[in-house]
């Protein structure tokens, strides 16, 4: 699971959960997969990303020094920041770990790089 995907996931599908965001991410095993830097990808993602959760992800992988806590006004003109975002959001691959619903504490395991968002029938 890439950290861009983490930014988009919610647990709102659980019955009774209001927002279900951001999920609490715990990483047991991760990998870094180098991919070609494409600034237009990051620019496309920017308006969709929740910046607090970007920062949260950066803290989880000890990259908080690379990412400003508040979203700067003109990210698109800042090549260095775009590269750091590329690394954080598209190159880090969470292989094992878990996501936790902030409201119910329900845990979604991440196995072989795939978060399991399946619910039991009594949770929907």
């Amino acid at each position, binding site marked *: 699971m890439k950290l861009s995907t983490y930014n988009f*996931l919610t647990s709102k599908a659980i019955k009774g959960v209001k927002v279900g965001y951001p999920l609490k991410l715990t990483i047991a095993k991760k990998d870094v997969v180098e991919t070609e830097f494409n600034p237009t*990808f990051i620019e*496309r993602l920017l308006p969709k990303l929740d910046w607090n959760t970007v920062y949260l992800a950066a803290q989880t992988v000890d990259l908080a020094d690379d990412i400003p806590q508040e979203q700067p006004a003109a990210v698109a003109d800042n090549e260095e920041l775009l590269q750091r975002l590329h690394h954080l959001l598209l190159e880090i691959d969470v292989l094992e770990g878990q996501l936790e619903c902030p409201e119910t504490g329900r845990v979604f395991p991440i196995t072989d790089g795939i978060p399991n968002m*399946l619910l039991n029938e009594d949770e929907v």
Partner: protein
Amino acid sequence: MARRPEHSAPPEIFYNDDEAKKYSSNSRIIEIQVEMAERALELLNLDEDENYLILDIGCGSGLSGSVLEDNDHMWIGIDISKSMLDIAVDREVEGDLVLGDMGQGMPFKPGTFDGAISISALQWLCNADKTSHNPHKRLYKFFSTLFSSLTRTARAVFQFYPENADQIEMVTTQAMKAGFYGGIVVDYPNSTKAKKYFLVLMTGGAAPMPKALGSEEDEKRISYIKKREMTKDCRGKPLKKSRDWILAKKERRRRQGKDTRPDTKYTGRKRSARF
């Protein structure tokens, strides 16, 4: 006719390790899935020069997703079968993968995706695999959460195999109830083999439905496309701004249902410098 797979077992059981492997390495299946995904992407009506973030629903082992990456889009795939997703990981697809059940809702925050495609998956949702399943309710939950996870100009295009007219009715009713506009496009309606159903849904208000391929008034266009593909094969893409290039571009716009001026003998002619 062969028994429908969705009648034989729930999807996460039917697509076990064995079936997932067989499915994903069959060259005939690969060819068909890729072709349908290409048509679905075309019906999404995106700007060809941009990169987008697309959701692939019932992504399986990533056959449909490969079309998205070939067109330089980022994608996230969701599927209920871990065996299918494991093969996608083995195939090193570029998309990111999520294990989830369409009928439980799309687990993404609002405004995430610029479009969604779904190839050969939606008919699975029309069945009740568990006693607690109500297909109408699951379809509604699916469409309403999908609607919110899309941007406000996005489309979602589903190629699917409806069993009968009631199923088409059930699916479109729930999609409209969830806020979508749109309808069904049937490509090659007169051919038993090539006939394909596409449910085309739009978030941003009613727009003209794209034209189907292979309907009768369309015959001329098909032969034209064939011709274009043949010339493309031997000469590569037509020169930019040439008559062929303009005709091909207009053809694509028409297939996407965009307003396009008819082709005339003047199309692509050099204008004199008088004005």
